[in-house]
């Protein structure tokens, strides 16, 4: 009977119920989208790095795996690494931020092709001219680029000479030497990828390199994949925490306002229930059950909305953003939404339960 009354109350004010559901849904969607974007973009970065075909990654001393830092590794290290036992190929890259999380990567296509098998061109061809740029399919779609289009990067006009399949290293690629010269990093590299003659040599090569270059961050690709996580990005966990806190506050306020107005509107009904012998606990139970229905249904709606936000991201910004669906976060986001809602319902429920029956019955 209590559930019947709860559902009847929710149906009685459909607009308020739908708005509350939507607000809780947006709160949950916001959390899941943020986490999905964080994990999705990191996984995408890891996938593209591993798509190079290398087994070892080396960065300059003092740099972290995920931070974007200027090219500071001397190009001479390429020949040094190639001279090491079991190393078959060494590829040096230059990464230059172009705004936000976007970068342009400088490559020697011959080196890169020897290691990875090269880009798979959907349209166009490799670089021929210094101002040629290759973009991947997502970047081309997001920026409406075709072969022959002009792309403005680093205050220069570039000719799109090729569009390639995504998943290999970078979304925007130019000649390494051109990028080095343009950014004042002539002869410098950001990262070096190594491919041992046989994969089973990887550990031995890394061990030998760490001994010779103790200050250099040297990772196996398996290690690299595991390091691309939210906890390894400086400030990202704190950022997610702030968004979750905002989510709790939004959920709290929405449910507080919704239940507060519901309780005010139902003052006389609370009086009727009390006249029938309903205890304060009975009234609390109704309010909290109503809140729980809103929070659970709102959380489910939020999960569904996440698929919508993913579709929007992958449709409108596939190159800049990658969103992952994160089922392991569903119970966490749902739990946070329910907790915020229950806290929000506490005062209205307490107010309703403590209402004087005679005053409530005379409420107009």
């Amino acid at each position, binding site marked *: *009977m*209590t559930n*019947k*009354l709860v559902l*009847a*109350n929710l*149906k*009685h004010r459909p607009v308020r119920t739908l708005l509350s559901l939507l607000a809780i849904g947006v709160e949950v969607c916001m959390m899941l989208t943020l986490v999905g974007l964080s994990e999705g973009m990191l996984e995408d970065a890891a996938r593209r790095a591993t798509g190079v075909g290398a087994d070892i990654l080396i960065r300059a001393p003092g740099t972290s795996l995920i931070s974007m830092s200027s090219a500071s590794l001397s190009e001479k290290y390429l020949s040094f690494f190639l001279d090491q036992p079991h190393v078959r190929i060494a590829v040096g890259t230059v990464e230059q931020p172009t705004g936000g999380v976007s970068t342009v990567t400088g490559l020697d296509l011959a080196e890169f092709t020897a290691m990875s098998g090269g880009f798979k061109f959907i349209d166009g061809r490799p670089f021929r001219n210094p101002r040629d740029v290759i973009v991947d399919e997502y970047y081309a779609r997001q920026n409406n680029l075709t072969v022959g289009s002009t792309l403005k990067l680093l205050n220069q006009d570039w000719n799109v000479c090729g569009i390639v399949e995504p998943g290999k290293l970078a979304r925007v690629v130019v000649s390494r030497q051109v990028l080095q010269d343009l950014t004042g990093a002539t002869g410098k590299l950001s990262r070096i990828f190594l491919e041992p003659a046989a994969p089973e040599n990887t550990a031995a090569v890394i061990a030998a390199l760490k001994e010779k270059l103790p200050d250099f961050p040297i990772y196996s690709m398996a290690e690299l994949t595991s390091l691309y996580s939210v906890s390894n990005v400086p400030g990202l966990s704190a950022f997610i925490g702030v968004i979750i806190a905002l989510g709790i506050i939004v959920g709290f306020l929405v449910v507080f306002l919704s239940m507060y107005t519901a309780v005010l509107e139902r003052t*006389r*009904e609370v*009086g*009727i*229930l*009390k*006249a*029938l*012998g*309903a*205890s304060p606990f*009975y009234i609390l139970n109704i309010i909290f059950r109503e809140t729980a229905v809103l929070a659970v249904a709102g959380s489910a709606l939020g999960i569904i909305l996440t698929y919508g936000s993913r579709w929007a991201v992958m449709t409108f910004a596939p190159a800049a953003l990658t969103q992952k669906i994160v089922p392991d976060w569903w119970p966490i986001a749902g739990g946070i939404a329910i907790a915020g809602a229950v806290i929000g319902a506490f005062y209205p429920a307490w107010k309703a339960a403590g209402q*004087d*029956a*005679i005053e409530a*019955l005379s409420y107009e």
Partner: protein
Amino acid sequence: MNNGDIIIRVRGLRKVYRVGDVDVHALRGADLDVRRGEFVSIVGPSGSGKSTLFHILGGLTPPTAGEVHIHGRDLLAMSEAGRTELRRKEVGFVFQKYNLLPTLSAADNIAIARHIARQSGGPDPKFSEILELLGIRHRLHHKPRALSGGEQQRVAIARAIVNSPSILLADEPTGNLDTENSSIVLGLLRDLNERIGQTILMITHNPEAAAYGHRTVRMRDGRVMEEA
């Protein structure tokens, strides 16, 4: 009838409300006895203390002083939880404004009274007979907004007696009804009193309505002045 038949015993009942900085003496030593199976009408001008007496007898508010026994239970010594239990088991209310829950059907308005009283299963078989008497059986699946005032008040009466309370308290039950529906509702209250021996206390301003009771109690200035 002997004293054992007295279901409501009120002696020197006082009730003082605090309104702002002022003490309002709503009851100033009211005395009243009601026997089981009686239908008592309470009349009196506004501010005479009728509603306050009604609220105290119904356990909606505690008395300030005096003696109130319902079914032998002392209301002055009763806690809030005790008064809640009293409303659940011993008293049924019928209000002037019907006070049905607008989101529930008539049937569910009756069912929720049983749920609150923790009565499992269906109502007493006798209740089916009462529904026939009230003439609302065919309207039970409608929500209050689809019922006329007379029908709503009959549903409210059904809700008030579904748990077989010792006392039915009716506060101006015909105050919002036209003459025809008033007669129907008053006739039903009298039928309930006569057929199932339901004890009824009814507040009214209408002398014709008061005449449906076995006797009429007149109140003035917080006291019971006379009985007729």
